[in-house]
């Protein structure tokens, strides 16, 4: 059997990193929008 486990470990690690990073980016952008919303509400 070929010894190529490194490729699949890299693929799983990259997959998990990309999905987690994307989820964090949504959370981060959401937080910034909420802060701005809070700012505009306070001004009103």
């Amino acid at each position, binding site marked *: 059997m070929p010894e190529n486990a490194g490729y699949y470990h890299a693929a799983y690690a990259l997959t998990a990193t*990309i999905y987690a990073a994307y*989820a964090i980016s949504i959370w981060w952008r959401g937080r910034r929008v909420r802060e701005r919303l*809070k700012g505009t509400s306070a001004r009103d």
Partner: protein
Amino acid sequence: MTSSVAARDSLESRTQSGIAPVFDWFLVAAGAAVIGTLVRAMAFTPVELRQGPAQKIFYVHAPSAWVAFLAFGLVAVAGLLYLWLRDLRLDRFAESSAEVGVVFTTVVLITGPLWGRPVWGTWWTWDARLTLTLFLWFVYAGYLVLRGAIDNQEQRARYSAVLGALGALLIPFIHLSVYMFRTLHPQPIVMKPGAPSLPNEMLVTLLMAFASFTLLYVALLRARYRLSEARSALAHQEGGDA
């Protein structure tokens, strides 16, 4: 036209307190399902003898491709419905699904070469399926860039609905490309006429992966849609277009 679109956009009247939080238990459940699937694939699924452990890349590559097709298919449906109904919620849905679809396609384009290198002996080949999948990524990356370049909400929704619907025409070509052209890419082993050609243990893992990645898509789509809603409410408060 502007007033009718605005009238149908229920969000315009929302206040900050009416915006749902971006994340909730659903994303946590989807993340746990994906982790469970990866653990099963790594520890409890047999290794294919000819390809070796690299074959396990298949359990993230194929479900990510399925979700990308689903996401872009829904962009097309939502875009066409927007052109008919002019409801901005459909435009927000299409935008959200396109962004999530681009992320899943990115995973497809990264995991594919990681499997191709040990099995084919090359990272990339310009065969029909790989090239068309790369085009699909460019079309929807372009879709997102286009949206960022247009300030007028209605114009942005209309142009991107047309591009989103046209881009999805690539999907059947990508799926059928392994039958239509001479290609290195393996033929479908589940999404094909007849029974799946996989041993049971591998098939169960693959079906779990399809289910958990679809769940992850729905969770990310919900979160991204809520972000669009919050942006729209902010634009309304600031008196501009979202």
